[in-house]
Structures are given as C-alpha cells and as structure tokens.
C-alpha cells in the first residue's frame, strides 16, 4: 500500500491533532487503511449483537473520526461492549477490519492513555502477564490435568519431537468445567494412535487478547515471544489447538508477526480422519443435537463444516440447525475479553447473549447444544441454569461427545 493512500479526510477542527495521530497509527496496521473506504452504510452497526446498547456504534465511530473527534470515542463505553463476534467485519461491504483494527486500536489508546480498563478485565491482564494464564493459576500446574487423563500425555521437552504438538490452552488446562473435554481429546488422540505431545508448563496463554481486540498489544507481544521461543525448541509437523481463539492467534496473528505455523483446530484434525473416527464408534448416542458455530472458528476463519462432520460420525444423533447458524450464528458473548466483562456488559445491555443463544437452541427441540470452543461450556451452562432450561438442554464439547460414543468416557487410571 502506498503511503499517500493512507490518509483520511477530517472535517472537524477540535481534537483534530489527536484524531490525526490516532488515524496515523491505525492506517499503518495491515488492513487499517480500509477504514478510509467506509461508505457509512451502517451494516456493521445493524448486525452488531450489542449495537443497540452502544452510544457510539461502529458506523458512528468512523463518522466521529472523520469529524476529528476521537476524544468522544475515548469517553464512550461502546469500546468495551464489543464481544469480537466479527459480524461487522464479516458483513462490511468494503472489508473494513472493524474488530481487529478499529476496536483494538481504540482499546490500545485507552490503555496507553491511562484512561484504564474495566476492573475485571484488568485483573485478567495482570494475571496473564504474571502467570501466563488469565485465571491467576499456578504456572507449574498447567499440566496437572494429565494425571487424570487415564492415557499417556507426553510433555515434549526442548529438543524433543512428535508428529503433533497439542496446544492445550488456558481453559482446557485449568478450568474444571473444561477438564473432561480436554481429557476426552487426549483419549481420542490416544485411540487414533497419534504421535503427540504437549508443551506442559512451557505453554503460556496464546495471547488471543490482541487478536480478539482486547487491545493489550505489549502483553500480546510478550506472550508471542515466549511461545514462539518455546515452539521453536520442539520439532513437530502440525500444531493442534482446542480453543478457536488460540487457533486464530496462532494461525493468523503469529504469522503476521513473522512466525507462520501450521495450525489445526481439533475438529478439523478429527474431520480429516472421519472414516477412521467412524470405525471406532462403539455405541449409538440417541440425541437431537444442534451445533453452535464459534465466532473465531466460523466467521473469523471460515470453518463451518469440520465440527459438523465430526458430529455426523457419531451413530444415532440427529443434527438440527438453529435459524441463526454458520456465518449468521449468534455470538456466545465471550470473545474480545468480554468473558471478563460480563457484568460491565450486562449493566449496559440487560440481555446476555448466551441466554439468547441457549433459548434459540432450545427452540429447535435439541437436547444437546454441541460446541467447539471451551469458553462456551461455562457460558452456556450458566445461561441454561438462569433461563430455566436445566434438564431440557445440555452443552457438550464435540470432543466429549465423540469420546463417549467410542466408549472412552469415565474415570480411568493411567
């Protein structure tokens, strides 16, 4: 992109310098220059699931920048309402990267300018910087779950190699409600005879913080440097990822920063082996299942089929779709740091997205809401309880369902 094209007309007078400085930084980012091509059609704001609660929606944000009024944006709560669902980015007729560039840059500015960050998200930042995970759990206990796996989960030390390096992720490693799904995937890899290993305590948060527009660029860079150094010390053919946010960070943002990695989400990995997976199925699962497309896997990375392919290998299940599916799927509301902004967002919307989504799932008559993202397990489980759907609808990770159909579930001692 030529330097002279990286400009944007500013109409106003007040705050022009601050706006110019902000745009100068934004226009330098990959795709950032497209913001100049906004036609103010409002598609972004109309498709935003929380746009109704924003005092300045994405269309108005760009209009404010054109008017030289970036200061208005810094005073607005809208910047922290974004849940990184990528509806705006996906639907924008001019391909403006609103989520990853505009919102992320605004958040960066708020952090750098000392305006601050809502306290729950601040705690997640501080814990990630200190412990390598947003929960503030002990870094030494990252691989503690392997003791309960019931199968051998090798930790690859520096210099060692395996066909597949499995990036377990923070939720998969620490969150108790995700543990059985992590163990299910370990058992699936084991029964498929995959030569795999994990990074163990050398794995830190992938830093999806930045790519899902939380705006902590320095933290993302620190995590990126640590993780790429650790990955570089091991030999592997592909990187297997359980969390779609880590999938996005590792496959897209790490590449952008100079480390191209061959990354697969676990549903893609299993879908590639669908015939083998199908042969291992032992017991039918009598269930009506609806699948929720994770934003980071679906809209963000165009993968809609792999999770459905894996579900179809399970004998006995009937797959039904929610009216909003694939690229139109409603977000669980947990992306872009919003998992740590639930109360902030609730105070301003009163309509939690996960509750809307589980109600949509229940309306299909499904008894299982299948998911492929670890954040959705706690988010949808809680939403099912608060919307009185307990006993009618269950949330289950695709890996856990496949493992159960193969007869791999239950407590096992290694």
């Amino acid at each position, binding site marked *: 992109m030529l330097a002279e094209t990286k400009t944007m007309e500013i109409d106003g007078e007040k705050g022009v310098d601050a706006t110019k400085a902000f745009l100068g930084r934004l226009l330098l980012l990959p795709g950032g220059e497209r913001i100049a091509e906004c036609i103010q059609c409002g598609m972004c704001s109309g498709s935003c699931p929380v746009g109704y609660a924003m005092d300045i929606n994405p269309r108005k944000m760009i209009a404010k920048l054109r008017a030289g009024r970036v200061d208005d944006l810094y005073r607005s709560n809208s910047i922290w309402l974004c849940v990184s669902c990528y509806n705006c980015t996906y639907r924008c007729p001019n391909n403006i990267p609103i989520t990853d560039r505009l919102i992320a840059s605004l958040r960066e500015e708020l952090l750098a300018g*000392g305006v*601050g960050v809502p306290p729950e998200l601040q705690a997640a930042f501080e814990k990630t*910087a200190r412990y390598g995970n947003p929960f*503030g759990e*002990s870094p030494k206990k990252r691989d503690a779950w392997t003791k309960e796996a019931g199968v051998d989960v090798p930790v690859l030390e520096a210099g060692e190699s395996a066909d597949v390096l499995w990036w377990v992720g923070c939720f998969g490693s620490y969150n108790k409600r995700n543990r059985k799904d992590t163990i299910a995937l370990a058992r699936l890899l084991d029964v498929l005879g995959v030569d795999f290993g994990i990074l163990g305590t050398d794995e830190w948060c992938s830093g999806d913080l930045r790519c899902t527009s939380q705006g902590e660029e*320095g*933290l993302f*860079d*620190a995590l990126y440097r640590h993780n790429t150094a650790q990955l570089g010390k091991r030999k592997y053919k592909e990187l297997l990822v359980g969390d779609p946010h880590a999938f996005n960070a590792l496959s897209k943002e790490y590449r952008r920063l100079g480390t191209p990695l061959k990354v697969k989400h676990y549903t893609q990995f299993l879908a590639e082996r669908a015939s083998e997976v199908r042969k291992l199925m032992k017991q039918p699962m009598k269930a009506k299942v609806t699948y929720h497309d994770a934003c980071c896997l679906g809209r963000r990375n165009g993968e809609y089929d792999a999770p459905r392919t894996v579900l179809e290998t399970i004998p006995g299940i009937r797959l039904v779709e929610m009216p909003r599916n694939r690229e139109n799927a409603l977000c669980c509301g947990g992306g872009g740091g919003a998992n740590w902004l639930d109360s902030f967002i609730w105070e301003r919307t009163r309509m939690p997205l996960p509750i809307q989504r589980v109600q949509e799932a229940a309306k299909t008559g499904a008894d299982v809401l299948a998911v492929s993202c670890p954040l959705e397990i706690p988010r949808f489980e809680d939403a099912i309880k608060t919307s009185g759907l307990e006993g009618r609808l269950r949330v289950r990770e695709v890996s856990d369902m496949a493992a159960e159909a193969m007869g791999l579930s239950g407590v096992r001692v290694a």
Partner: protein
Amino acid sequence: MKAAVVLRQVPDVVEDLVIAGDGRSLSEEDVMYITNELDEHALEQALLLKARHSGTVTAIGLGGDAARDALATSVAKGADEAVFVPVDFAARGDNVVLSSHLASALREGGYDVILAGVHAADQLDAGLGGLLAARLGVPYVGGLTGVQLDAGGRTAVVHKEYPGGRLGVLEVDLPAVLGIQSAEQPPRYVPVSKVLQAKRALQVKEVRGPLPQVAGVTVRKLLKPESATHAKMLQGDEDAVATQIVALVKERGLL
C-alpha cells in the same frame, strides 16, 4: 509534597509454599515473589496525592531482585524515583529488621509522607509502618482508606476504618507514616509495553549496606496447615447412598 512508598516483596501464594530442609524457613528456590497487595494500594494512594498536590513519589523496592520489576511498574504508573533496598532472603519477613534498615535509608529523604500497606501476608508480627514511624520518631496511623493533605503540607486528614463498618476522620501532623488499607480507587492498570519501556530506561538508586543487628523474633519452626477432619464421600447408587445416610443419622443419634 514529597511522598515515599514502600513496596515490599512477599511470597506469592499462587505457588505452593515449600518448607526448606531446616524446617524453619521457606525453600528459597521455590518462592516466587510478588509486591504486597496493600503496598500496591499505598502506591495508588501516593499517585493520587501527587495528582492533587503535585510533588514527587519515590518508590522503595524492598526484597530480592523481584523488587526491581516492582520498581519498573511503579515508574510506569507515575512514580518519579526508584530506590532499591536489597534484603537477604532470611530477613525478608522480619519487619523489626526491615524497619530499622529502612529508617536509615529514609531519614535523609525528607519525605512529608511515607506510605506502606497496613499489613503483609508474610509479616512475623507488627506491621512495617508502625515500627518504621517509631524508628523515625514520627506519628503513625494505619488502616486508612483515604488521605487528604492540607494546603500548607503540615497536616494530613485521613480516613481510618474501624471494625463494624465505622469510619474515623483523623488529623495527623506531618511528616508521618501512613498504613494504607485500601486506596481511594483500585490500583491503576499500566500496559505491559509501558512497563517494558520503564524497565529499559529505569534508573535505580540502590541502598547497599549490611542489615542491622536488632533484637527481635526468631522463627523456630514452620509447619504446613494440617486438616483436622476430612469430608467423607459416600459411594454407590442412590439406594446405597440413602442407606448409608440413614445408618449415619441413626449412629450419630441425630433422629
């Protein structure tokens, strides 16, 4: 206004604490240090005072090398000066030794207010602030949730928390040592890039010198907490569990 803040490094209990072979100290290689949480509040309160009255904030890092990171963070947040007071591993939890050592370092500073967290997770006995004030011969008031300085800088009006939700408003002559319970607002966030920037440019004044020999308290033995009773999990299907519950209720005479 000239303020100093004591940032003491304490063991981070996110990691399991390991007792060393001597049975009376922590295993040094297993300890990860973190700034005492209430000292972070003391820093925030000092930065709020600076914003209101102008002046300078000197951050004083106390402990091992981890204190340097705490100093970089405090400079990134707005502290003007960083002073590192290295302390041997064995003495890091001993406020009697620390207060004596710090007093000589602080005496020449001419600070109007010295702020410290009112207590710390690892302190042996009394809080550092009170001991420090005694050594310096200045007043001490602790358990504070707010500080206002008068225009002339001669006194401070402080909000002090009492049990039962009671609040006291007190006036204290300056210079004084203030024990902070919580700052008027939660400690601010500083982005990682700013901390790294501060780290690269950090100018640390280091206070060297042996720790003073003072009469105090000595640790004889450290013990891990032991659970006195355990919960018993009943196993089996609903019928089996129900039978066991009935048996238990009868056995304990609870009916």
